[in-house]
């Protein structure tokens, strides 16, 4: 449906996007995950036809949207990162204006406003001015304005930045519902859990490049996926620690007060040797926490930095 082929964009001498390529299939929800400044917004701004890449090509249904932006504009819903609404107008006036901008009118527009305001949960506040809305409501209306014309592709640029958990959940459920109804979604975020929750496919971006892409499991599979294990032990002794260090799957073992932390190497091992080492030395295992690798961990492994650095 959408082919992004080796696109580049620089502002002055700063390279914002450096040769990214990916495909978006009809009906899928693809996530662009990366820290602030990774180039996500620049990449999707080019897909949204807000500006042209310096180099590369973007094809929609095989047609270049760089040469002819009109081929995608009426099929596209764009939810910018910043609130893009008229604050002194009512929610209803905003929806009407953006609906008419995409060619809706009369009873059809009215029906769509009713339907969308229901999905985003602001139907009873439509007559109020937008500047009286909470941050979460503005975000939801911001999304609603992009959905009125039943777009085939919807681009969400970090739509949950700076809002309360309740509104965030509302937005995430709304995005899921929109995708379930058949829309193709491109979703950017630096919140790993959002992308994990929503997207079938994920592209991890850093410094203007896609450094990995695939499903969540595929991405985790690309790294040396140790589980981080934390043990709380009563009666911890030096000998006990020495015995644990000798166990082959316990790597990078460190001790902190009554806790022992190590990376468990390999997927098919149990902890019997560890438990034996503790009990043989007269200790008592109080708790064990096993942390499986996630996208945050994948990003850390790939870049040496945390997602929210």
């Amino acid at each position, binding site marked *: 449906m959408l082919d992004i082929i080796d696109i580049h964009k620089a*502002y002055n001498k700063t390279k914002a996007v450096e040769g990214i390529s990916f495909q978006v299939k009809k009906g899928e929800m693809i996530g662009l995950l990366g820290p602030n400044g990774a180039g996500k917004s620049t990449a999707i701004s080019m897909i*949204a*036809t*807000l*500006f*042209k890449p310096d180099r590369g090509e973007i094809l929609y249904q095989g047609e270049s949207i760089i040469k002819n*932006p*009109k081929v995608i*504009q*009426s099929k*596209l819903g*764009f939810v*910018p990162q*910043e*609130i*893009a*609404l*008229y*604050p*002194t*107008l009512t929610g209803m*006036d905003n929806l009407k*204006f*953006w609906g*008419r*901008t*995409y*060619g809706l009118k009369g009873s059809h527009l009215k029906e769509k406003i009713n339907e969308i305001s229901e999905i985003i949960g602001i139907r009873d506040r439509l007559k109020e001015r937008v500047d009286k809305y909470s941050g979460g409501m503005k975000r939801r209306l911001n999304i609603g*304005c992009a959905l009125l014309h039943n777009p085939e592709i919807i681009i969400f640029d970090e739509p949950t930045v700076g809002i309360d958990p309740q509104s965030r959940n509302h937005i995430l459920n709304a995005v899921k519902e929109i995708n379930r109804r058949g829309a193709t979604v491109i979703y950017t975020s630096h919140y790993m859990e959002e992308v994990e929750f929503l997207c079938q496919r994920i592209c991890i971006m850093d410094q203007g490049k896609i450094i990995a892409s695939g499903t969540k499991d595929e991405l985790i599979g690309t790294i040396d996926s140790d589980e981080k294990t934390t043990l709380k032990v009563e009666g911890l002794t030096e000998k006990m620690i020495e015995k644990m260090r000798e166990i082959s799957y316990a790597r990078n073992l460190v001790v902190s007060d009554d806790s022992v932390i190590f990376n468990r190497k390999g997927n098919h091992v149990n902890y019997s040797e560890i438990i034996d080492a503790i009990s043989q030395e007269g200790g008592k295992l109080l708790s064990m926490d096993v942390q499986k690798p996630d996208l945050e961990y994948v990003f850390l492994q790939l870049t040496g930095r945390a997602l929210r650095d």
Partner: protein
Amino acid sequence: MLNQLGLRFKLLKDDRIMIIVMTVMALALTFIFSSSMSGSYRPSIMVIDQDRTQESRAFIKELQKSRLLDYRQAEEDEAIKQIEQSMAIAGLVVRNGFGEIVHEGGEADLEIIRIKDSVELIQLEGNVRSTFFQFSSKYKTALATVEIIKEIRPDIDEQRVFKETQELSDEYWKNRNPFKLTSTVLSAEKDWAYNPLIHYLIGFTLFFSTFTIVFVGADILKEKQQNTWQRKLVSPVKNTTILLSLLITTFTVGMAQVGLIVIIGNYFLDIVWGMNIGLMLVVFAGFVYTFTAIGLVLGGLAKSFEQLSAFTPIILVASAMLGGTMWPLEIIQSKILLFLANLMPHKWALEIIEQTAAYGLNINNYIVTILVLFGMGTVYLLIGIYLHSARTVRQS
């Protein structure tokens, strides 16, 4: 387009305070000027009577009836001193032999002393010319009347007949306006004669309207700041439609403000603008169009509304000064400033209205002015479109 226009007019409520303040300011200053200057402001002219005859005295008395100029008789030294100290704008010398010329017929020898040229001198020349024409007509009518009656009744009191004929002529001039052309110049109450008040009134109207026009046009920056501009750019609406809707709204607001001031001035403040209102509105339309385009350029140069608010007043005040809204350009000597004035739309709008007032409507000059204003506007418009049309949106 209708959707975009509807939005723009809806959003005008956000600018309502600025629009009202600018309109009220222009009207208030117009009112203050009209009530404080109208009728009381008369440029002073020093009159030096070298002839010292009955005729020269009668002529000076006739001049002193003027409602437009304040003729003050003085000795030559005193008169020159007054002119040098700018207490009077010019001097009028009634030379020796004036009485004889009036009596015998011929060209009167009158001299105007001036320090520099000004628009008021055009008014002075016209006033002296028409007063002399009226005076000599009355004088000759009275002389002829005395001659005719003397032939029928040689015993008449010549002095009395002469005086009564002149008085009758006076009444005739006042009540019948026998010469329409002359009466237009003389009756200053409603028919137009150059009045510097008009210069300032048009100046204020133009000056305040520029603020409204530029700041309404600068809504484009508000849109960029609230990100609706970017959202529009990715919609199927053409960029030209977005810009055109903004320009139409700005132009309409500017014209409404200027039109309101002109109409209120004309009907409620009793200001005589000196030009057919329809023709004048076309001049103002050219001016508003130009400033709508200038607003687009300024909006394209500024990075934010706050930045625009900081530098716009400086540009608007400076251009108004250069364009002669604050003072007549006739007092400017610098060639550079006069050249720069030609680049200011204010100058062209003011000039045509004043020219029409002084010399009547010259259709060629009028068309040139309209073409210059609309041409200037189109150049600025193209620059403005260039600055805004690039799809690359400036990154914040």
